[in-house]
């Protein structure tokens, strides 16, 4: 585990991230390592349960396998996982299965920036999800990360491994509870998807007005692997910067990133995704659709084509519904090989007046028409979202429109 020199790590603790505003880690104290243990998920206190449901996680252990983290420690893990699934905390996994070391700080370099270095330094715990080769999980796997202590850092290190010919749907909900507001969430996730395996990973974030959020995610994909990443941020947040990367290292691997954010007033959101098409005939589709209600919204996307037959498309679109913020679309295409096909679309602006008037012609009021178009713009084309999320999206849009 001491692949990295302590000196390098210490140096990296001051290293600013490539994107997003810099966060002073010294402002926060450590998050708790001893937290309340919840035996049965349905016994989760009501206020926490409400927050879980907000981020797409249900308190139903019989139909879904669930891991719950509060601050820096695991609070609940379904006792009997479905066949083909091993789930536990990352620390437990490293102790119990020597081979997990090969996946531990493997695709993520801890010296990438101060957030990864901090996570490495703290030897942070997180969730471990392993789908055995050949198993197609029938039930979704849920993880829920709660940040409960104000002025603290939540540091997590998650590992997901989907074995060859296996498949899995995951929903991850992250949220603040109790009075946590001015706090920092750092989550390092290392994902490995085997040959002809697939992972659908939906992440829903619901933070508080001052929360800072720095996820760091790398996905390594083998031959014929398939990865779908949905990222949803609907509620006001302080500051998010996230730029997950997929490394399509096996021939024919395919990934898609769908990002959907609402940047409220005083929210600063910098999101997107990056796909390295390193093997022949790999494919990627990155779609980012966002709404600004006066916040700062940066939609990024980067495609890197390094192998023949690579095909990828990138879309960064944002609608601005209220003045005051800054909205950016930053698509980047990079190729090191002639036989690649990569395209992008980027747009920033208001809703087309023509669309609003068209719906009003059928009797919808202007507000109803705007809501319908915004809702469609956000969710259009994104599949695999949890059922209750549609309701959350409606609520978020209605709430944001009321605030006008």
């Amino acid at each position, binding site marked *: 585990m001491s692949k990295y020199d302590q000196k390098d790590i210490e140096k990296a603790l001051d290293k600013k991230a490539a994107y997003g505003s810099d966060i002073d880690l010294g402002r926060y104290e450590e998050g708790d390592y001893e937290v309340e243990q919840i035996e049965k998920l349905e016994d989760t206190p009501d206020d926490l349960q409400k927050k879980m449901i907000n981020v797409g996680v249900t308190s139903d252990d019989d139909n879904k396998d669930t891991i719950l983290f509060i601050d820096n420690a695991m609070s609940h893990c379904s006792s009997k996982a479905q066949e083909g699934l091993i789930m536990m905390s990352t620390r437990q996994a490293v102790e119990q299965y020597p081979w997990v070391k090969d996946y531990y700080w493997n695709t993520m370099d801890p010296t990438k920036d101060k957030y990864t270095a901090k996570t490495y330094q703290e030897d942070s715990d997180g969730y471990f999800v392993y789908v055995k080769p050949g198993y197609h999980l029938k039930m979704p796997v849920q993880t829920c990360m709660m940040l409960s202590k104000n002025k603290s850092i939540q540091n997590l290190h998650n590992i997901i491994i989907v074995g060859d010919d296996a498949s899995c749907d995951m929903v991850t909900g992250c949220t603040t509870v109790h009075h946590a507001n001015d706090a920092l969430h750092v989550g390092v996730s290392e994902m490995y998807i085997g040959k002809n395996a697939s992972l659908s990973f939906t992440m829903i974030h619901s933070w508080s007005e001052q929360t800072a959020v720095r996820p760091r995610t790398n996905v390594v994909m083998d031959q014929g692997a398939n990865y779908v990443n949905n990222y949803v941020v609907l509620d006001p947040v302080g500051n998010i910067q996230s730029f997950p990367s997929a490394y399509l290292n096996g021939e024919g691997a395919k990934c898609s990133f769908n990002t959907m954010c609402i940047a409220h007033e005083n929210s600063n959101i910098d999101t997107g995704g990056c796909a390295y098409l390193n093997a022949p005939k790999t494919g990627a589709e990155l779609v980012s659709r966002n709404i600004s209600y006066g916040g700062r919204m940066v939609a990024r996307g980067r495609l890197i084509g390094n192998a023949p037959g690579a095909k990828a498309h990138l879309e960064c679109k944002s609608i601005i519904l209220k003045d005051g913020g800054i909205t950016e679309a930053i698509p980047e295409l990079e190729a090191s090989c002639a036989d690649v096909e990569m395209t992008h679309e980027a747009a920033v602006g208001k809703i087309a*007046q023509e669309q609003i008037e068209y719906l*009003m*012609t*059928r*009797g919808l*009021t202007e507000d109803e028409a705007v809501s*319908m178009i915004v809702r*469609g713009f*956000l969710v259009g084309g994104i599949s695999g979202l949890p059922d209750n999320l549609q309701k959350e999206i409606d609520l978020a849009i209605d709430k944001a429109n009321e605030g006008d």
Partner: protein
Amino acid sequence: MSLLEIKDLHVEAGGREILKGVTMSLEEGETCVLFGPNGSGKSTLLSAIMGYGQTKVTSGSITFKGVDITYMPIDQRAKLGIGMMMQRPPNVIGVKLGTLVEVTAKNGKGKTGREKEFNMQDFLNRDINVGFSGGEIKRSELMQLCAQSPDFVMLDEPESGVDLENIGLIGKKVHELIYGSEADGSKSVSAFVITHTGQIMDYIGAHKAFVLIHGKIVRDGKPEEILEDIKNNGYGVGDE
């Protein structure tokens, strides 16, 4: 009192005066066609009656059912009983056609569940107009209008971009929309139809025709006579 009365209407679009004093009226139960060369202001007139933002009324008035609607929001005009079939409606990404039809029926007087009649069963779950052919757009528009069931319907070139296979169904549905159908017990309404070719008149007939040139109504009369005259002699002005 006429159903629709337009008095000395001046309208700007794109910073230019397009309608230069239009005066006309349309009676209850009447179907009127509007002829005119390209760029004469036909679509602008329909847009102004519907209240679209690209048109700006600078003077004059529009009265519908005795209510001054000159500056009324679009949705209130719709609720008052005005319906519109756009020539090229916009795509609405992420909004399903079925959703719009349901909301339209809720705001209007018509019914949902009629997609089979319009051969639109496979389209309810699709994003509105996205990837629709010319004929599919018209069928979709007509299905939406049936869900709204307006008392006065404006059709902007219902036959444009429609192939021969579709024109029969579209002609029949436009006829039902205007003259009602025994099948669903709907009654006859008023209509205002823009046509370049007069082709749609084979299906719906018309009581009256207007000719719009240079933003003014220059002539009205019997539709067949006027169409015949235009076919033989043109508008006498060329395209503007």
